[in-house]
Each structure stands twice: as C-alpha cells, then as structure tokens.
C-alpha cells in the first residue's frame, strides 16, 4: 500500500506546521529551553493539532460506516440526522439538569444521536432499493426537521448560542488542553470499527449475503450505529459539526481502493485527518493572525470535491 506512508508523511508535516502557526510566534527549536514556548505548545498548539487530526479521522470512518449500513454513498454523519440528534440530547440534558456532570452530557448526546440515526436507517430500509437519490434526500429532510426542533427548543429556552456552537460553526480555535480530550473517545470508537471492518464490508454486500455468510446483521448494525453516534456526539460537543468530511473522504477512497474496509479504513482515517488539517491550516493562514473556522473552509472545499466526485462518477456507481 503506497497510499498509507504518503498520507502519514503529509499528515506529520502538516501537524508540525500546525504546531508553529498561531497568534503567538513560537520557535520549535527553543521548546525545551523556553518554558513559555513549551506552555504554548502543550496547552494550546498540541491539543489543537490532535483535535483536528482526531476529528478528521473519526468523522471519515463514521462516514464509511453509515454509508455501508444504508448502502448508499451520498450520506454522511452530517446528513443522517446524527449531529442534530446529538444536539437534541445535549439540549435535553442542559434543560433538565443544568448542573449535570460532563460524562452524563456525553452519554445523553450519544444516546440521542444513536436514536435519530436509527430512525434514519429505519426510514431508509422502507424505501425502494433502486431509488438511490431518495436516501440522501430523506437524510436531508430528517436533519432539517430535527434541526428545526432543536432550534425551536433553543429559541424558547434562550440556548440558541449553544446550538450555534454545536451545529453551525465547527472550528478548533477554542481547543486547549483539558477541552478536547473527549475526541480521544471518538478516535477509540473509530479504531473499534476497524476491528470489525470485515463485518461492515460484508453488511455492505446486502443482508442476504451477510446472512448467508453467517453474520448476525443486527449486531453489526448496532455496533455501526453506536460508533457513528459516539463519534458524532463527541465532535459536536467539543468542536461543533464539521461538514462534508464524512461524505467526501469515504467516496474518494472507495473510488481508488474499493470497499475492502480492512484495507481501506486506515487510509480513510489518514485522509480525513489530512483534509481537516489542511482546511484548519488554511483557515488559520488566510487572514492571519485572525481565523476562518475550519468548518467554513471545509464547507467550500468539501462541496467542490463533492461536485467533482458526482461529475466523475462512473456509469455503474
């Protein structure tokens, strides 16, 4: 596999650049002699860099899973009602128990995200298989409906600002040590998916083939749902939803390497990290020392990539 080392080198190089740019100028060479430099690196730059990489990797893997579960390439965790579900869960726990501990908020967001994604899958399974475009449309409609419920509740309870940070402005400028560690859970969930990669690849071949090969489809469905929900919930609560990564990266990798997930998931994770890292760097450099949110840059880059993918789609997709 030539893709993996190339992507790993690109990611490492960008992570290094990410450590050096920001409002405070920092010289990596003096990290060990200058305590102030070390402080900036450990408290701000390193957490941010790791947060970006983890978010990109985990969201891309979640995208592969949701696409395998619904057998449609035009969906991602941002268009399956998952992010809105996580926001709904956060909103509910914030209103019902404002002083709730962090872990409980995470559980609430994850469970709620799982419920709305399960709802999405239940809707999809009732649609005719051949109507490929109905799946993303159903996802957009569901996301829209859930999003408006979230907004309405937020408006009624004066929590609109919170919702904005969860759903609309995915960005990493607020990341400092102590405020991003939940993303490791997202990374762990994505890693868990890799151990079950064969199962997801088989599920992607249809229930019939999966049953014939002796795979309990319900168990795999549940595991996939859990991973997608946990990844999305962690991302939504820590940095806000990042659009398009979970949609475009799986498509690009599948086009080149296919759907043998055991082989492709590491490439998917690396590519996702590279893409979000590139967008975050771009956002930090365009109007330096100010920032454009990475989510915004991704919105532009991601939609262009997606249009290109649609245009170049082979006849048999």
């Amino acid at each position, binding site marked *: 596999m030539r893709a993996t080392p190339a992507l790993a080198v690109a990611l490492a190089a960008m992570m290094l650049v990410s450590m050096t740019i920001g409002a405070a100028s920092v010289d990596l060479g003096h990290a060990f002699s200058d305590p102030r430099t070390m402080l900036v690196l450990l408290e701000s730059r390193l957490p941010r860099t790791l947060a970006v990489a983890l978010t990109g990797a985990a969201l891309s893997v979640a995208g592969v899973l949701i696409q395998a579960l619904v*057998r*449609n*390439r035009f969906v991602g965790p941002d268009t399956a009602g998952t992010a809105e579900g996580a926001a709904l869960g956060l909103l509910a726990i914030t209103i019902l128990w404002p002083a709730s501990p962090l872990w409980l908020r995470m559980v609430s967001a994850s469970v709620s995200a799982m419920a709305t994604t399960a709802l999405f899958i239940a809707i999809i399974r009732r649609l005719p*298989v*051949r109507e*490929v475009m109905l799946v993303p449309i159903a996802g957009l409609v569901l996301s829209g409906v859930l999003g408006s419920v979230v907004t309405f509740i937020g408006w009624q309870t004066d929590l609109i600002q919170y919702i904005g940070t969860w759903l609309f402005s995915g960005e990493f400028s607020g990341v400092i040590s102590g405020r991003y560690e939940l993303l490791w859970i997202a990374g762990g969930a994505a890693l868990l998916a890799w151990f079950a990669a*064969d199962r997801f*690849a*088989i599920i*992607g*071949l*249809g229930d*019939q*083939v999966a*049953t*014939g*090969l*002796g*795979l*309990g489809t319900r168990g795999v469905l549940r595991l996939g749902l859990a991973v997608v929900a946990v990844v999305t919930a962690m991302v939504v609560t820590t940095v806000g939803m990042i659009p398009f990564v979970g949609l475009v990266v799986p498509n690009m990798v*599948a*086009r080149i390497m*296919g*759907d*043998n997930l*055991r082989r492709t998931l590491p490439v998917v994770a690396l590519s996702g990290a590279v893409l979000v890292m590139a967008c975050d760097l771009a956002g930090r450099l365009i109007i330096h020392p100010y920032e454009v949110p990475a989510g915004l840059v991704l919105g532009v880059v991601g939609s262009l990539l997606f249009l290109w993918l649609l245009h170049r789609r*082979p006849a*048999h*997709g």
Partner: protein
Amino acid sequence: MIRIDGVGHRIGNAPILHDITTHLPEGRLTALIGPNGAGKSTLLRLVGRLEPLQQGRISVGGHDVSTTRTEDLARVMAILGQQNSIASRLRLSELVGFGRWPHHRGRPTAHDHARVAEALEAFALTPLAHRFLDEVSGGQAQRAHIAMAFAQDTDWLLLDEPLNNLDMAHARALMGRLRDLVRHQGRSVGLVVHEINYAAAWADHVIAMKEGRIVAQGDAHEVLTEAVLSDLYEAPIAVVSHQGRPLVLHHV
C-alpha cells in the same frame, strides 16, 4: 438431508406456501421447478434462513434452521439469493474471499487463500480477479457471487436461479461444475431453475411446485414427463429422450 416439515408461509395476507413437507436428498443435485409465483424461491430462502420461518420445521443435515446459530449454519450450507444490484466496490478476489469468512472469521490462512484461488479458477474469473464488481458485466458478477458460495466449501450449496445473466456456455459449465461437486466430492446441491432443460440434463432429483404446493417430486425422469409438465405449466409440452436424458420441447 434437508427435511422440510409442514412449512407454511404468508407475505401479508397472501399465502405463498401451503403446508409443504418434502426433503432434498443428500449427495444429489435437486432442482426446484415450477411457474412464476410457485413459491420455489421462498422455499429455498426459508431453508437458507434468509427469511424467518413462520410455520413448520426445516433441518439441514440434522441442524434445525431456526434454532442453530447462523454462524454454525454458514459452515453447513452456502446460500446464494437472487442478486439485486449492490453498489459495493469490491475486487472479485475480495468478494470470493468473503466466502471463506465463516471459516476464518477475519484471519485467513494459506488454506483459505488456496480455496479462493481455486474458486476463481473454477469459474474462469482468475483474469478478472483484480477488477472491481462495478467494472465487470452482469454475468461475470453473477459468476463471482457463485464462486463466493462455492468457496464457502459447505456440504450443502443452495442457489436461487444461478443461471440468471449467464450465457449458454457458462450456464453449462456451472451445471457441470455442480454435478462434479455432487459426484466426486459428495456434496449436495439444491437450486431453483427456470430453464427446464438444465434441470432435465443435470438434475438427479426434481421437485415441481405450483401455487405454493408440491405437485410432483422424484427422480428427474419420473417428474419431467409430458403429463406432469403440461399440467404444471398449463401448456402443451412435449418430452423426448436425448442421450438418455429427458429433453423438454416447449418453444413451439
């Protein structure tokens, strides 16, 4: 032996199968024939636990289909349903490789790789092994799916209309391959066929179905007679003998 005992099935309010009791003999190639809507595919899918059993009992080689764990059944029988277009982008070698999954559950050994290579070779897919599923023809994809079931290497092989999309030569090669499995490797095969002459030429045992009931069963030459077939398909059908096998003339 596959035992089917008192099996009934409904989809919504529509009865599909009525109290079916029959068996598929071991070490034989059994063909299920009958007009559209006879319930052949449903019966095969129930045996292959692709549909939940609503009524009655089915056992495959002594394993009760509704109580045996699905992963254990996958080492006893391989079932291939009718393919619906799947957008998965797997290479043919990877697809066939998944046929070994019930045996290795993710850790393929040299033996598994050898079986996959053998299955690819058996269905003339070796030159296409590195192509993606969406880059081959419908017939080639169909052969790859059959090769996957073949690689599963089970005592029972159940195929629902495996001849779909296959040209004459590949259809004949497949039937020959299946008979080979039965004669020389002691396997048992059950398949749904629409082209009656493939059943006439290759099947040992035939089960004829109509409107959810079995109307005839037994050795091929007992079932494939003018009387049974004309009644089964409600059309005048002539049966002659060709090289010792029945030959069904139904096209004029």
